[in-house]
């Protein structure tokens, strides 16, 4: 079942890429396939039962490269199911939004379907080589999306920078994977086997180097400071759905790597590096928020808030490596981290789609070009206001659930985590400032004659925000999936 979820979009992409199907067919095929993916993942969740003994569900394994003990091994647990669901939902929303794309729509649909396959594959991968292959293919796909469908003057340059930077990161990751492979006895790339063996447990020096390689690779992808500079130009020059996918799904690959590989497979080294990770998390939270506050371009601003929001995840996983506090607090931190990945995906995805409407209508993201959009585009303004409040962590939306758990858990583990608290305040300030500049006042500048959102734009945004609302009001829908897995993870890190 899992393999078919991964390969369905890939097959569809191939079918769209090769024969010359009409554009209309391509667009609707794209929507149909992404909708089917949502349904399939829904079925998967409905049939998912938390595996006993911290194992995997829906596990599939087939021979692949036996010479290096690498196999096609996929499976899910409470850490990956939420991200699979997020991927399916975000890509479906993007497919609907993409109905209005009129530049090479057939290739566009094929590209995003292929990209979806790589994302689904990554979150289901249980083998390092499979993980790495999907990791790199996603970079290639996103490069094509920015270079081919981006709209900035420098789209090609930004795309290249994105590609080279994250590709370099992936090489560091590969180095780390090889280190793990060589350390394991017998040599293997299988993630559950590596987790069970924890091969570098008694080798502090080698373990330190391997973890450093993994951390570098994942930090570039997440991104944490100081490895984030590829993100703002990539977002500014990507199309709306390119940005949405990049922020909502691709960034999660970095943080997912922490909880899937680095933490459980190298508990000793992780605990040694926990203070560094925590510090980088705190710095990312504050730095991302402050730099976002100073932006004058709506899309760049949202991009920097991503650094802030992913900083919460890094902060929480760092805190989870500190054994001082109680287990309950560390579990809460990890649960919060995974919740934040989902929450950020939903909310920031929606915000980037809304930012895309600005560019579509006027070609400008500059905050000061607008004003009084509440009059000319009331629905857009309402959605943006809701998205902004959701993103700044107002309760009843998923962001609050995530941030409360991250902070309560992290502060419950170490009081130093409280340094990051002003992050939620600065985020509030910057979103309200943006709201004030864009939406309030009398219509002026480019707001005059601004066409309000169309159905294909409003529906995906509303859908994403409604899901965020659902998680915010009934968080146990999501937390029941995550909590057992984070308990297992905290247990593994504590070995």
């Amino acid at each position: 079942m899992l393999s078919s979820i991964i390969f369905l979009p890939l097959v569809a992409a191939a079918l769209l890429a090769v024969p010359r199907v009409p554009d209309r067919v391509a667009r609707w095929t794209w929507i149909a396939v992404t909708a089917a993916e949502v349904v399939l993942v829904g079925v998967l969740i409905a049939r998912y039962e938390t595996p006993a003994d911290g194992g995997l569900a829906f596990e599939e394994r087939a021979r692949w490269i036996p010479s290096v003990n690498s196999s096609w091994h996929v499976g899910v647990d409470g850490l990956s199911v939420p991200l699979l669901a997020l991927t399916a939902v975000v890509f479906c929303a993007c497919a609907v939004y993409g109905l209005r794309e009129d530049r090479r729509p057939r290739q566009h649909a094929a590209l995003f379907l292929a990209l979806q396959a790589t994302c689904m594959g990554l979150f289901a991968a249980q083998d390092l080589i499979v993980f790495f292959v999907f990791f790199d293919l996603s970079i290639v796909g996103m490069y094509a999306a920015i270079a081919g469908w981006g709209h900035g003057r420098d789209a090609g340059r930004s795309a290249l920078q994105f590609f080279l930077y994250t590709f370099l990161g992936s090489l560091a990751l590969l180095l780390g994977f090889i280190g793990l492979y060589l350390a394991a006895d017998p040599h293997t790339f299988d993630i559950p086997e590596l987790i069970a063996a924890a091969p570098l447990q008694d080798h502090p020096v080698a373990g330190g180097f391997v973890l450093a390689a993994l951390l570098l690779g994942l930090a570039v992808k997440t991104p944490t400071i100081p490895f984030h500079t590829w993100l703002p130009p990539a977002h500014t020059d990507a199309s709306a759905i390119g940005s949405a996918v990049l922020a909502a799904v691709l960034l999660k690959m970095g943080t997912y790597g922490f909880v899937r590989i680095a933490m459980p497979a190298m508990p000793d080294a992780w605990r040694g590096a926990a203070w560094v990770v925590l510090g980088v998390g705190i710095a990312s939270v504050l730095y991302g928020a402050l730099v976002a506050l100073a932006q004058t371009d709506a899309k760049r601003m949202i991009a920097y808030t991503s650094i802030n929001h992913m900083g919460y995840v890094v902060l929480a996983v760092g805190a989870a490596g500190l054994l001082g506090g109680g287990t309950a607090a560390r579990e809460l931190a990890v649960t919060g981290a995974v919740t934040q990945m989902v929450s950020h995906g939903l909310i920031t995805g929606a915000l980037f789609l809304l930012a895309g409407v600005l560019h579509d209508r006027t070609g400008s993201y500059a905050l000061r070009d607008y004003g009084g959009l509440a009059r000319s585009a009331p629905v857009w303004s309402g959605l943006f206001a809701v998205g902004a409040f959701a993103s700044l962590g107002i309760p009843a939306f998923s962001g609050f659930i995530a941030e409360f758990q991250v902070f309560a858990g992290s502060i419950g583990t170490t009081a130093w985590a409280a340094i990051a608290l002003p992050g939620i305040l600065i985020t509030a300030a910057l979103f309200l400032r943006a709201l004030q500049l864009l939406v309030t006042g009398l219509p002026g500048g480019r707001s005059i004659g601004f066409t309000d959102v169309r159905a294909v734009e409003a529906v995906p945004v509303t859908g994403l925000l409604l899901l965020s609302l659902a998680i915010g009001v009934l968080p146990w829908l999501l937390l029941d999936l995550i909590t057992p897995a984070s308990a297992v993870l905290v247990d593994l890190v504590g070995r």
Partner: protein
Amino acid sequence: MTGLLWACATVPAVVGAGLCVTGRRADRVAPALGIVTAGVVLVLSIAVALGRPVTSAPFLPGAVFGLAVDALAAVVLPAVAAVTLLVLLFAAADIAGARARFTGLTLLFAAAVVVTVCATTLPTLLFAWEVMGATSYALIGFRWQERHRVGAGLTAFLTTRTADLGLYLAAGAALAGGSGLALTDLPELPAPWRDVAAAGLLVAALGKAAQLPFTAWLSAAMQGPSPVSALLHSAAMVAMGGYLLLRVAPLLGATSWAGPTAAWVGALTALLLGAVALAQRDLKQLLAASTAAQLGFVVLGAGVAAVAGGTAHLVAHAATKALLFLAAGAWLTALGTKQLPALRGAARRWPLVGVCAGVGALALAGVAPLSLWATKDAVLAGAHEESLALYLVGLAAAALSAGYAGKVLWLVWQRLPADADAGYDTEEEGTREVRVLQQAPLVVLAVGAAVLGLLALPPVADTLRRALGSGSTPTPGLVELAVSALVAVVVLLVVRIRPLQPLPGWLEGWLGLARATDVVVVRPVLRTAEALARFDDRVLARAVTGAGRGALRTARAAARFDDGVLDRAVADSATAGVRLAGATGRADLAGPDAAVRSLAAGTRWLGGWARRTQTGQLHQYYVSAAVVLAAALALLLAVR
């Protein structure tokens, strides 16, 4: 009964959200729907106040979404629900445009207040607390066409959220200390964490209650519509700050410092903001400063564990201040101004409004037997037991409240000047009418402002104290009651006889708090943000592109090396090889080849000679054979 409690919170939330989403299309039905919903909430709140349900729903790991109605909630919940209903009645006649949005946001706010009042765990409290903040932002900035009003909402939201960080901290402390996240668990936390939790809750409450040093946002918040001020800045949001401290008074008491800190912050706010109120020339600004000052008494009460007195003061103040804000709103809508000099004699134009406002002002002044007289003394009795200085500061603050209440009272009841119209319509176009729907709520609130003092007087006070579990707290003696009543009357008369001289500008300017916040916090943060953004663009991003460029330069150098050195070396060696081959070829021709050829020529020459013997002449062969034989014989002989 638990179903009723859930309904009390969810009904206004669902209706409110529905109205917000529907928007302008629901403008016609919104006021009626809002009033009905608020009525339902009032009925439900009375029901749950009597039934005292306790309930919870799954929420976060280790923390349920807990709601309960205890004695404290049972007193406050119906009061808040009643004020909400009355404010919505007033607003039905007062708010002209975007009624669906107004009603929807008010109902959402009301739902958040219900949850705040009934919350039993920290996540539940924080949930409602922040929704309250967000809706208050939207309500203060209700008229979004005017950017400064939205800016005022932003100030309010950010200031209160700054304080709210304390709740996050408290939650972390509760986990670190190993207790649950229930509010009642907090006093049992081990030592350092108990202090952190208390500090967090204290800061959060002081922020919401607009106590020092967080007061400035309340001044800005007066940009909001008057009904919003009546609800948020009297009965609900600001009051919730005081309420939270009353709720966690046991935690404050469990530490050695939190109670006294709260008490002194409350007392000083009551004193200083009383003076600020006295200096105001804008009616709503005066009422706002007075709100902070009156909440100071509630905070003082929580700090000295006079929970019953604090609760009574909270409820009585809610009625009184909502009344005064609505009266101010009625005049603002009708006359287009809220400037005190322009409101001279306004009470005489609509006597019912004037009488109700008069009752409110007298209650605010602390005139016996109206409500705030008794409730304030119940708080001050607790302060007196704690320390005399605290009591005296409180008494001075009470005198100031009589001063500013008197200022309003005498002014609005003066004879209407002949040129009154000249001062009108300075802020908006007045309608010159106060409708029945605007007047009715005033009457109800005036009754409340008059009689709610019963909560602090025997026999109700004793029941309340027992129910709140603070039976041992001191009650005001007859002397204290008489002194405070006398102070109120004397100050009122003094203000009547000798109208106030203009007070120093820093008092009218709210102690310069907004400016101080701007200079100390806002600007440095913005500067830092800009500096970091420049750093990000000019240093970090450039370092990366620089590294990229460096890599490119290295690559070019390598390419040059490749072309200039390696490639040339290969080419040169090839040339050399070819040349060597040529030389070798030549040498080959000159040496071995020539030798071979000359050998062949010699052999050929010899062959030629050898051929000459073969003549075919027999006689010549015989001669040859004879010569060879002779030679052989000669050789044989010679050898032997």
